């Protein structure tokens, strides 16, 4: 059991906060080593807080980076006489809300249309095979390089033509999360298949 001070915070947490305050003070003075230590020490705290706030697991990594960027841009506003944990928690909470709002907006503007390929036929009537064996291998290889959540979304929704509801039931992921992963997966695939950015 941690020893608890009269403020209700354990002595270890208070000692750790004092260490982070000192690191931030040095970072404000331009000490890069202290800054790197500080940001690395912040990572698990930010992740824990985002998880406690119920941020979608697929959004956690992006939100952590938002928080890191905000720490960097707002570092002059930190007053070393005040708790660092509170400063960090307020930034993390705000970015968690921003992420949830963005995710919600994004999900509202996307429409699932599994029949789109069938209903919008290619007018050129090109009898050539759509893709060559070589290209199929490249696409398979690129899909295999995607992070697991994105790969799963691309395979289920684009390749196996599962509906969002089916995929959601089978994977236990929310429909919004599947849409985000599909979107990111396709974007990453475009980058992998066309590294020079040619359209």
């Amino acid at each position, binding site marked *: 059991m941690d020893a608890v001070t009269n403020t209700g915070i354990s002595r270890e947490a208070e000692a750790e906060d004092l260490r982070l305050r000192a690191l931030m003070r040095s970072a404000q003075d331009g000490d890069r080593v202290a800054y790197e230590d500080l940001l690395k020490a912040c990572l698990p705290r930010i992740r824990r807080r985002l998880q406690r706030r119920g941020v979608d697991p697929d959004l956690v990594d992006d939100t952590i980076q938002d928080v890191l960027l905000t720490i960097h841009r707002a570092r002059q506003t930190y007053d070393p006489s005040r708790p660092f944990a509170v400063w960090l928690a307020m930034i993390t909470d705000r970015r968690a809300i921003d992420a949830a709002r963005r995710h919600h907006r994004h999900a509202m503007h996307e429409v699932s249309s599994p029949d789109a390929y069938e209903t919008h036929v290619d007018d050129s009537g090109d009898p050539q095979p759509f893709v060559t064996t070589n290209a199929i291998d490249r696409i398979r290889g690129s899909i295999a390089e995607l*992070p697991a959540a994105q790969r799963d979304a691309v395979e289920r929704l684009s390749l196996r033509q599962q509906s969002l509801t089916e995929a959601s039931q089978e994977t236990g992921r929310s429909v919004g999360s599947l849409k985000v992963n599909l979107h990111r997966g396709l974007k990453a695939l475009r980058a992998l298949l066309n590294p020079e950015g040619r359209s």
Partner: protein
Amino acid sequence: MIGASGPSHEEMIGRLVGDLRPVRRTRPPLVDTLLWTSAVAAFALVLTPRVNFDALAARLTAAPDMWLALAGSLVTMVLATIAAFMLGLPDRDPRWALAPLPGLALWLGASGLGCLRAGLEAFGPIPTHEIIDCFAFIVGFSVPLSGLMLLLRRRAYSLRPTLNAAIAGLAASAAAASLLTLVHPFDATVLDLGVHFIAVGVVVVSNGIASRRFGGA
């Protein structure tokens, strides 16, 4: 690890560390509040030659609600100024945004009382140039005061930039409306009051829009 299209956390930390420069810490919010309200006091001093103190004293004595309206605009100014500087620091309570409400309630309430007391005269004719002058005065004084607020907040970082800018606009327009009382010590008619608050609204909304377009977190 982040997705295929973004950097890893380690890469991101490396970039941020590489970009590190020494920074000057933001001043305590109450110091900034003092600096800004001193500037408002300086504006009041500049206006002194234009003030008819006898008319002002007579008017304020005859109509106590004018005192209340002036007190309301001053309280709104001070509380909105403190709130604007507090909200520029991420670790301060976001409920500071509610701080100007009591002053605003007093300001609106007392101004409304003035209209009721004026009764039918409230709908009497007001010279157009006077309406334009009032509007121009509030907006005209709010611009440099908002600019000064922006200058003092240049090292701040708000997590709610639009709300923060709108509250800064409220502080500037409340200050301008308080200054207006010095040179325009008349009962607020409905139209007069409407013009004042439209001007305040224009300043608040403009500050909010400007923060969305030109800055913010």
